[in-house]
Structure formats: structure tokens, C-alpha cells
């Protein structure tokens, strides 16, 4: 195993670290509700792994011959790196959605406050 065989895993870990910094800076997921974030990602990754296993069992895709992977397999044709890739996919989805949802809530709240100041008291941002 050479240094190059850790390139993909290293890139995934670096990306996860970057997402964690975004998460911490804006308190989006683990820095908002760690238990809930952990369960969300855990169940999400487990579901995607089942999907992967189905794809592998059906012979749809297989591990490539890249020299940039460790070669450690969790199951036939299922590299260790896939778990980290799926975690990155799910964590990206969570951080993106939490950010967009919060921005949307703040805009709605600002609009509701403006409406309240104008005299039409509603207060809620949904029906």
C-alpha cells in the first residue's frame, strides 16, 4: 500500500472536514442537534449501502482498478471508501438543506415581521 492508495480516502476525509467546519460555523447539523444529526446520517448511509449492495449483487457496477484506493473491502466489490463517500453525500445533503431551510425561514420571518409592522398581524409563515 503506497501513499497514493490513500488519495481517495484522504480527499473524502478532507471534504468531510470542510463540511464539519461549515456545520460548526453556522450550527447546522451536529452543532445544532448532534443526536438527531447522527441518526439522520447513520440511517441515510445504511440505506444507501443497501442500495449499493443491491447494485453490486445485480452486477450493475463494480469496484474500479484505480490505484488511489486502499484496497480494503467491506464486502466483495464494496471498498472501505464507499462508506465515506456515502457519508459525504448525506452530510452534504443535510448541511445544504439546513442552510437553505434556515435562510428561507428567516426571510419568511422577516416578511411576517414587516407585515405585522404594517398592521396585518399574521405571525406564522405557513398556513
Amino acid at each position, binding site marked *: 500500500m503506497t501513499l497514493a492508495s490513500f488519495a*481517495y480516502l484522504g480527499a473524502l476525509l478532507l471534504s468531510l472536514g470542510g463540511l464539519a467546519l461549515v456545520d460548526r*460555523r*453556522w*450550527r447546522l447539523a451536529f452543532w*445544532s*442537534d448532534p*443526536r*438527531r*444529526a447522527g*441518526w*439522520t*446520517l447513520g*440511517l*441515510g448511509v445504511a*440505506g*444507501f449501502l443497501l*442500495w449499493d449492495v*443491491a*447494485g453490486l449483487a*445485480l*452486477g*450493475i*457496477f*463494480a*469496484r*474500479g*482498478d*484505480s490505484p*488511489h*484506493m486502499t484496497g480494503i473491502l467491506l464486502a466483495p466489490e464494496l471498498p472501505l*471508501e464507499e462508506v465515506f463517500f456515502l457519508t459525504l*453525500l*448525506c452530510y*452534504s*445533503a*443535510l448541511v*445544504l*438543506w*439546513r442552510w*437553505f*431551510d*434556515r*435562510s*428561507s*425561514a*428567516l*426571510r*419568511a*420571518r*422577516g416578511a411576517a*415581521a*414587516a407585515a405585522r409592522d404594517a398592521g396585518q398581524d399574521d405571525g406564522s409563515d*405557513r398556513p
Partner: protein
Amino acid sequence: MTNVVLNAIVLVVVLVLAVPALRHARKAPVVWTVVHLCVLTLVFDSVMISARLYEFDPDKILGLYLWRAPLEDFFYAVVAGLAIPALWVVLGRRRPVGPFVAPSPLRASDEHAPQDDGPSRPSDQRPDRPGAGPS
């Protein structure tokens, strides 16, 4: 079974489960998340396939590519963008102790109200600023 059939089955199952869970959630942020994940898939799936990290059986995919990413791989982005917000919403209904306690009478419409805390509001236009500490 080809890849598109497998992925369509997964997408239908996720839609059936996630859409009711997201009934009371704001729609635009979910759509926007899916769009961003699709763009990320377009770029990084192409890079990963170019790097030979994984490969497809050409007989089991449609053969439609966006850049180098097979059309089928975009199902992953759509499913992640639906399932992850749905899981977050569903898991939050069972607050405050943890995921395996009895569901509280809180309605899903209460979901988003108390979450927007922290000192870093991008655009807080409210004149009053109640408790800005972490929840």
C-alpha cells in the same frame, strides 16, 4: 434488472416515505438542495469515473451520460436530497429524549420554529431578538 429499474424502485419507495414526512416543510429549500446535489454529482461523479474509482457494466445502464456521469447516478442526488431532510424532520418529532421514545403530541408544523438559533443569523430583520444562545 438494469440500473435504471433498480433506481426507479428506490426513488418510488423514498418518495412514498419522504413526501408525507416533508408535507409541512418548506418546499423550495428541498428543491434547491436537490439541484445543488445534482450539480455536485455532475462534477464529482465524472471525476470519480475518470479516476476509475468504479465502473459500470455497459449492458446494465442506459448509456445516457451528462459529461461522464451516467444518468442513473443522478438518482442518488435526488434520493439524498429528499430522504435526508425527511429523516431529520421525522427524527425531530420524537424530541426531546431521543429517537426511541414515544412520539410527542407536537405537530410537524412546529418543526422549524425553534431551530434557527446561533449568533450568526445571515439576515435577521426582526426588531426583537429573543434568546440567541444555542438550544
